[in-house]
């Protein structure tokens, strides 16, 4: 392991802010992209299902 203490790992010799900001943006991109795709999938399924249910009653 490169770092000897947890504090050193967070601080990154003064570059902590830049490093963690970059990794936070990466995490945000991954999570948002997954969430948007799955949310749309759920919404589409619900929409199509309810339309099918209506047409079955008629």
């Amino acid at each position: 392991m490169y770092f000897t203490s947890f504090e050193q790992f967070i601080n990154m010799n003064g570059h902590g802010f830049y490093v963690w900001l970059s990794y936070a943006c990466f995490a945000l991109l991954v999570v948002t992209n997954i969430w948007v795709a799955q949310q749309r999938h759920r919404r589409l399924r619900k929409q199509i299902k309810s339309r099918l249910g209506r047409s079955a009653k008629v």
Partner: protein
Amino acid sequence: MSWFDNWHLPKWFYQMASPKWFYDFGARLQPWFAGLALILISWGLVWGLLYAPADYQQGNSFRIIYVHVPAAILGQSLFLFMAVAGAIGLIWKIKVAFMVARSATLVGASFTALALITGAVWGKPTWGTYWVWDARLTSTLILLFLYTGVMALNQAIPDRSVAGRATAILAIIGSINIPIIKYSVDWWNTLHQPSTFTLTSKPSMPPEMYIPLLLMVIGCYCFCAWLIMQRTRNEILDQERQSSWVARYLED
């Protein structure tokens, strides 16, 4: 054009063109890509953040490379991917190809934005500035604008097949920008460092620095494969909602 009429592509190419076939195919492949992405990205992140040595000049800010380079590579690859999918749609009149191209747009745009943001954040401690109007940075910003243009065009045209054709043409023309980004560090004097990976020579870094980067790049490719399949399958559900197979799938 008789040579063209007699020229047959492999069977899977025609199967891919069927929305139902693609929907099932995606569902079968997705777990593999999700698993690979999860393993490779977490492996790359832990290695890059905890075990890779710091750069002798840049110190620990060098670790930004493990998100910046994959983001930049994906941003450019996905634009070419979008152009190729669009071209397939234009040539063989395949609806699914346009759906794939449309699904890749936002993914590519978000990775390009990430490359610009992480680049700016990395630039501050390394160059002393968040932004310079240099060839690499400017051409990448143009790439983001091209993505925005493709998305706007897609939104503006309600007819899916017309929108698919129009955006395909824009993506194909816009691809000229990709070699410009790639060679910008060789053609112009720039602040940006030269490419980390080239196909023809050994990496300029030691293995304990570039292997985690390689893991991150491949992991991000797998993540994009999973995401684009999911988005394409959503697109198929949306556009094929009148088909009987969609009704059959959703009944149970």
